[in-house]
């Protein structure tokens, strides 16, 4: 731990003279900052996507998990009796908080997207729907089905499991995709910083030769490069994160009409996640440059 703190302190306080032994380089500095900035920008979006799909999976799961539907298909004369019998069964079922039969208007509203608003619902053999709200503990679906089978033969219980699973699965995959994207972005950042560091080390072979001539050890030479690249990555990633977060902030707020896309963003403490991106970019740069420097120094004899 103390070693980690020492490294961290060294990165920020540094050694003014050691920093200056490596000449300020042009394109590698800009490349590193730009790559870190662009990757941080993309990471913000991948993170937003991942967190939003996580929320969506939870929301869909919760919404559908705590509600179910009972559908009663019965001949015209028996519909009211079977509905009443079903409601009685539900009222006495542990785990059912509320159960109510949908009105004709509500059923018409449900069918309106397909048949239009003027549907003569009373003239059609439309099943009666009963909406069930569950308690937190939920009910025993198997037991309820058996009771309904005995007392309300025309009732079919839909506990939404068959809807919920694929939706949750899709949202889960989307979340996984977001995290995989973040890992790929991290790996790409490491690759680009390694290339930039290699270019800087190759361009400074003469400087390294002079430093070795006067007794510099590999650690001293590597530190000068590592600190420079780490700070560049930190700065670039901070700018990319700020711009990315601002862009996410400007996305439309979640609306029912907009579906998933309008809910893409951060919520609550989720806004703190982007804060982690610049330090993580710095950590990636630290290790990528360190490895590149060790390799280059072993090859430069």
């Amino acid at each position, binding site marked *: 731990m103390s070693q980690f703190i020492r490294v961290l302190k060294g990165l920020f306080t540094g050694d003014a*003279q*050691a920093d*200056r*032994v490596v*000449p*300020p380089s042009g394109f590698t500095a800009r490349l590193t900052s730009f790559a870190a900035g662009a990757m941080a920008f993309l990471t913000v979006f991948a993170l937003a996507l991942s967190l939003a799909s996580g929320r969506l999976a939870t929301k869909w799961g919760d919404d559908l998990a705590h509600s179910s539907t009972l559908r009663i298909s019965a001949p015209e004369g028996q519909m009211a009796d079977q509905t009443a019998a079903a409601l009685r069964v539900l009222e006495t079922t542990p785990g059912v908080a509320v159960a109510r039969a949908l009105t004709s208007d509500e059923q018409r509203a449900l069918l309106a997207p397909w048949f239009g608003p003027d549907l003569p619902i009373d003239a059609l053999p439309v099943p009666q729907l009963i909406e069930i709200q569950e308690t937190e503990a939920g009910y025993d679906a198997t037991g309820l089905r058996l009771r309904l089978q005995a007392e309300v033969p025309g009732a079919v219980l839909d506990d939404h499991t068959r809807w919920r699973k694929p939706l949750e699965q899709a949202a889960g995959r989307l979340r996984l995709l977001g995290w995989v994207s973040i890992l790929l972005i991290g790996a790409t950042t490491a690759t680009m910083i390694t290339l930039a560091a290699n270019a800087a080390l190759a361009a400074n072979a003469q*400087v390294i*030769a*002079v*430093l*070795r*001539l*006067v*007794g*510099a*050890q*590999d*650690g*001293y030479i590597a530190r000068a490069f590592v600190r420079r690249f780490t700070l560049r990555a930190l700065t670039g990633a901070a700018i990319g994160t700020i711009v990315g977060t601002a862009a996410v902030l400007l996305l439309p707020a979640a609306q029912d009409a907009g579906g998933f896309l309008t809910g893409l963003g951060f919520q609550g403490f989720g806004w703190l996640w982007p804060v982690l991106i610049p330090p993580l970019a710095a950590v990636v740069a630290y290790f990528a440059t360190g490895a590149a420097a060790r390799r280059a*120094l*072993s090859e430069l*004899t």
Partner: protein
Amino acid sequence: MAYGYGGAELLSDISLKLSPGSFHFLTGPSGSGKTTFLKLCYGALTPTSGDVRLFGQDVRAMTRDDHALARRKIGVVHQDCAFLDHLPIADNVLLPLNVSGRDDLEDVANLKELMGWVGLSKRASAYPPTLSGGERQRAALARAVIMSPDVVLADEPTGNVDWEMSQRLLQLLIELNHMGKTIMIATHDMNLIRTAKNKVQARVLRIANRKLQLAGADL
């Protein structure tokens, strides 16, 4: 030991021990291998056969960091001086202290004295590319001795300076030798060698036909 490159043997059958506190001149015609020999002496090159030992350690068995530590005890004046062109000359002179973590106030005071000694007090903030050949050599010598190394290896340290300055630089090296430091100077300047032999007990070595010979008698 021997050293060759690309199939050609540049130095052969070399045997020499630099005793602590000794003073050596190395002469020989251009291209005879004086610079190569000095590089072998501070471990920048590895012999193709035989052994080179730095402070008792075989250079082949030394890690890069071991080499770095050994070079802190060896001040080298390169023929081309080898500076970091983006740093002022004072920072270049301080470089050996900086890389070894010894750039404290006392050393900075030594820097001022040393820069005065080599006649570069007013050029301390100048950058290497703006210095003349002589100024660069003086700065290189200042950098080589600022760590008070055990050994100073100088490749043509007076090649680009006037007589007066070459005498001052020689005097500095002689004083270091009187302090117990080992000195080896590769030079063409026979007058410098003759002057030095009046002030210090020096051995003169000559590289001829790839071999190292003692050449003191004919000077």
